[in-house]
């Protein structure tokens, strides 16, 4: 009798144990890679207040800059609501084909210079991108010492760059002294079975001393460290954020007759974590 009972107990213990193991191994549904480690939110713009962008965070850059902002871009940046407005919980930057101040296109470019300046952290935005040749939206950062040391010495971090005639790809890059323009350190990410103009996607970096990790949604696709750059590492200092949509320029080429205007870049939020 005793032997029977202890046999039963053993059997039950074993079954429970095996059962427990099976539950653990078979039921895991969390297949997402851990791409972000910084979760302490320190700044956010949820674009929840309709109208102009929040001037506590953003300033508009106006006009055509120096030779189309250094890239022979075709647009004139304005702060008019038809080019930049917050509505329905989103920032909407609209590129339009129209004659304005001598340019053939208008759009917007907002910067956080002097307002949000950040050294290190997780910098993230949720964006729905436009489509068509010539459209060149970007979510990027420039070193705050740009007025002192100029570009490219100030450094540039491109969190997300996209060309409208390549709707399944985005680029994550750095520019710096010795590695700028065509020699930038860059990697692209192709969205599987979808394209970036169909829906919102999350673009971000996790940035610390001597590293920048780039991610799209739940995929870490690029890591840049001092070993990867062919010059001085200039990213251990504060940067400010830029959101813009250019039209034409050296990188995207001009729009063609297939490009449909107006085109929208929709930003749901910008968030910074540490």
């Amino acid at each position, binding site marked *: 009798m005793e032997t*029977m009972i202890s046999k039963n107990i053993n059997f039950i213990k074993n079954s429970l144990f095996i059962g427990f193991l099976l539950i653990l191994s*078979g039921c895991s549904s969390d297949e997402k890679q851990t791409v972000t480690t910084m979760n302490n939110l320190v700044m956010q713009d949820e674009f929840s207040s309709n109208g102009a962008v929040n001037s506590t965070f953003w300033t508009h850059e106006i006009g055509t800059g120096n030779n189309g902002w250094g890239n022979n871009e075709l647009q004139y940046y304005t702060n008019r609501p038809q080019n930049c407005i917050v509505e329905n919980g989103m920032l909407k930057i609209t590129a339009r084909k129209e004659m304005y101040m001598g340019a053939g296109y208008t759009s917007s470019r907002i910067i956080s210079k002097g307002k949000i300046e950040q050294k290190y952290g997780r910098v993230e935005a949720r964006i729905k991108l436009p489509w*068509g*040749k010539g459209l060149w939206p970007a979510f990027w950062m420039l070193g705050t010492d740009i007025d002192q040391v100029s570009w490219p010495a100030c450094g540039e971090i491109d969190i997300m760059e996209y060309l409208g005639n*390549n*709707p399944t790809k985005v680029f994550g890059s750095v520019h710096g002294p010795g590695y700028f323009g065509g020699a930038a350190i860059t990697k692209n990410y192709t969205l599987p079975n979808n394209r970036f103009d169909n829906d919102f996607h999350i673009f971000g970096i996790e940035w610390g001393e001597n590293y920048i990790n780039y991610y799209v949604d739940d995929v870490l696709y690029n890591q840049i460290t001092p070993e990867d750059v062919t010059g001085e590492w200039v990213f251990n200092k504060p940067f400010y954020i830029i959101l813009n949509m250019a039209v034409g320029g050296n990188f995207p080429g001009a729009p063609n007759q297939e490009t449909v205007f107006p085109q929208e870049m929709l930003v749901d939020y910008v968030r910074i974590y540490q």
Partner: protein
Amino acid sequence: MKNSKINYLRNTFIIAMLLLVNVNCERDLSDEATNASFSKTATVFTDDFVAMGTDFYFPYGDSKFTAFSVDRTQGYQSSASIRLDVPNNDDTEGTYAGGIFRIDGAGRNLTGYDALTFYVKASQGVTVAEFGFGEDFFPNKYITTLRNVSVATNWQKVIIPITDASKLVNERGMFRYAAGTQSTNGRAFTLWIDEIKFEKLGTIAHGQVSIMNGNNVSVTTFAGVNSKVDGVIATFNMPNGNNQSISISPAYLEFSSSNPAVASVDATGLVTSLSAGTATITATFNGAPTTGRLTINCAGTFVPAPLPTLNPANVISIFSNAYTNVPVNYYNGYWAPWQTTVSNDFSVNGDNVLNYTIFNFVGIEFSNPTVNATAMTHIHLDVFIPGPIAPGRQLRVLVVDFGANGVFGGGDDTRHSTTFTAPFLASQTWKSIEIPFSAMPGLLSRSNVAQIILEGGDGSVIYVDNIYFHN
């Protein structure tokens, strides 16, 4: 005994609970899983045909029947592909290759896919007239065609978007093609096709459906004349960022007329003009407007030219419904670079009428063979000018004979031009022109009459009917 029974029950209960928990580690059947009434198989051909049955290839009736075979020596990343041998354009068995691949059995449910894709290469650089799907030799309801596909000598992927997959619940027409030798100067070549399958790419977007190829087209018609909404296309932005247009069946669209009393339109896009006035034909696709429109300017009831009454034995007819016409090369030679005349011929109640628009001059040629009009005494033609006759307006009728050598040029061609002006030329009324050959001294012979040329247009419209020689 009581204890062991309880133990037994408890053990069984515990083990049963464990089993239940283990079984729940599997995913539940999702909400989208329904019992499919038609197969959702994606692949049409990979290393062989998949789920097509046995009797699935049907060549077009005037094509070369034996163009299709399966090549078991090569393929795209494989050693099997479909081989299409496009014939020389003088092949007596068929001057082009074309046909359909239709399931021998029930159709497939394609509602979960957004494109037909395949890989193709050719024995030389060619342009293939048509690739597509949705043709089943009746009713071809959702036929879709990609035209003028550039194919080179290495494998490339072709994507043909599905315009509205929700309509393809039971489709038998898996693949179709038509390839001639227009791009190879009539010389034969080979196509290989592999990995034909339906896919859900997720990377095709911004589909825009158009009629009239997206253009606004106007036509002038008469009551009883039919017009057709054509140029029905869907334009998509492809994964490589380029736009691609495909021809789609009118069955995808709903048509409407802005003025059904002037012109009506049916579900196939056939427009019938009914009474004088203007009507705009437009279309929607799943409720969304399409680009392009067809504007019908109906001029009302058409008054035909006077019916010819001559005995056919006395007539050599170039253009008339009353007689049998001799072989004519063309009724409009489109003689570049100075000719502006564009033909827009129509038919009212079975009466065919030549309609020359933007008329400055036009040539009609019948040189294969030429016409021996020696026994004839006159040329006749009926003309109708709908617009106003400007001061000084002329209409000149030329008859050209190619001379003894029977071909254009060679120093033996002769011609005579006869000029007509107002008041003979009048607006909105048929005028019958009769010119006796005796009044054409410039025409030295009429054994090889080969051309009639009309000149003197001022860019307006002229209708012509009943062109013939007679005695």
